C-alpha cells in the first residue's frame, strides 16, 4: 500500500498555472486542430469566439503537463519526509470533458485536481485506480475546462 496512503481524497489542490500565448495557440492548432478560430487571427475575429482561442485539446494537454510536474514535486517532497510517493501508471481515459469558455491569447489558467475516489481492483491487485476531477479557471475566475479522469496507481 505504498501509493494510496498519501492521497487526500476530496481536497481541491491547485497544481499550477499557465499563460497561453497566441504563438503557442497557433502552433498547437496548426498541428492538431486547424480550425480558423484557432489558427487565423482575422478569421477568429469574425467567428462566434470574437478572437483567436486555444484548441480545447491544448487547454487539456497543458493540464497534463502541470499534473506531471506537480506529481513529481509531490513525490520529491514525500521522499524528503521519508514517505513513499505514489507510483502512477497509464490512464484508462477521461469523461465529462467540458470547455465552458474560450481560452484566449494572454489568458492565464490555474488548474486544480480533486481526488474523488481511490480503489483496489481484485482482478489486478498490483495496480489500484485513482479517480480525479480536474478544473481550469481563467484570471477572471471563470471556469474554462473541467473533466474527470482516472489513473492506475501501484499498490
Amino acid at each position, binding site marked *: 500500500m505504498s501509493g494510496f496512503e498519501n492521497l487526500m481524497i476530496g481536497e481541491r489542490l491547485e497544481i499550477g498555472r499557465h499563460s497561453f500565448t497566441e504563438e503557442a495557440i497557433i502552433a*498547437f492548432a496548426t*498541428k*492538431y*486542430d*486547424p*480550425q*480558423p*478560430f484557432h*489558427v*487565423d487571427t*482575422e*478569421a477568429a475575429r*469574425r*467567428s*462566434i*469566439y470574437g478572437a483567436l482561442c486555444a*484548441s*480545447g*485539446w491544448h487547454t*487539456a*494537454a*497543458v493540464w*497534463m*503537463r502541470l499534473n*506531471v510536474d506537480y506529481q513529481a514535486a509531490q513525490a520529491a517532497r514525500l521522499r524528503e519526509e521519508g514517505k513513499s510517493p505514489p507510483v*502512477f*501508471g*497509464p*490512464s*484508462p*481515459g*477521461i*469523461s*465529462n*470533458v*467540458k*470547455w465552458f469558455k*474560450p481560452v484566449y491569447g494572454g489568458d492565464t489558467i490555474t488548474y486544480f485536481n480533486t481526488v474523488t475516489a481511490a480503489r483496489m481492483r481484485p482482478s489486478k491487485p498490483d*495496480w489500484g485506480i485513482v479517480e480525479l476531477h480536474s478544473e481550469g479557471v481563467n484570471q477572471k475566475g471563470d471556469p474554462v475546462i473541467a*473533466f474527470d479522469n482516472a489513473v*492506475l496507481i501501484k499498490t
Partner: protein
Amino acid sequence: MNTDPTARRTYALEDFTPGRQFQLGPYPVSAEEIIEFASAFDPQPFHIDEDAGKSSVLGGLAASGWHICAITMRMFADSYIVDSTSQGAPGVDYCKWLRPVLAGDVLHGQSTVVSARPLMSRPGLGAVKFSHEVFNQRRELVCTSENTGFFGSRNAGEVH
C-alpha cells in the same frame, strides 16, 4: 487552407444525418512525434524514452493519451471539420484509451453521426453528436469516444 468563415463549406448542420459515417486517417505515428508531444505535455518516462516504454506496462514507446486525442482531432479536421461550418465543441462525453499507441503504429477509424438538432438558444446553430472509433494497423480498437460539436446551418449564412 481556406480560413474565410463566409466561404461555402461542404458540410453544414443539415449534412450530419444520423448514421452518416466519415473515414478518419490514416495517420502514421512516429517515435519523433510521440517524444515531441510528450516532452511538451506529458513527460512521463514511457512517453519519452524507448527503453522506459519497453519495460513499462505499455510495452514500448507509447503515445500520451492526450496525444491520441490531439491526433484524433487532426483526423476529424482533415476528414470533415475544416471543410464544415464547425463552430467548436462544448466538450467530450468520454474518451477511452483501450490499447497503447506505439511508435510506428498507423491509426485510422471513423466518426458516426449519432444525432443532430438545432439549438433553440442560438438560431442558425446546431449540435451534432458523434461517436468515434480509432483502430491501429492490426484493426485493433485503440480508442473510442463520443462528443458533441456545434455547426452552422446551411442557410444561416455567416454565423455570429
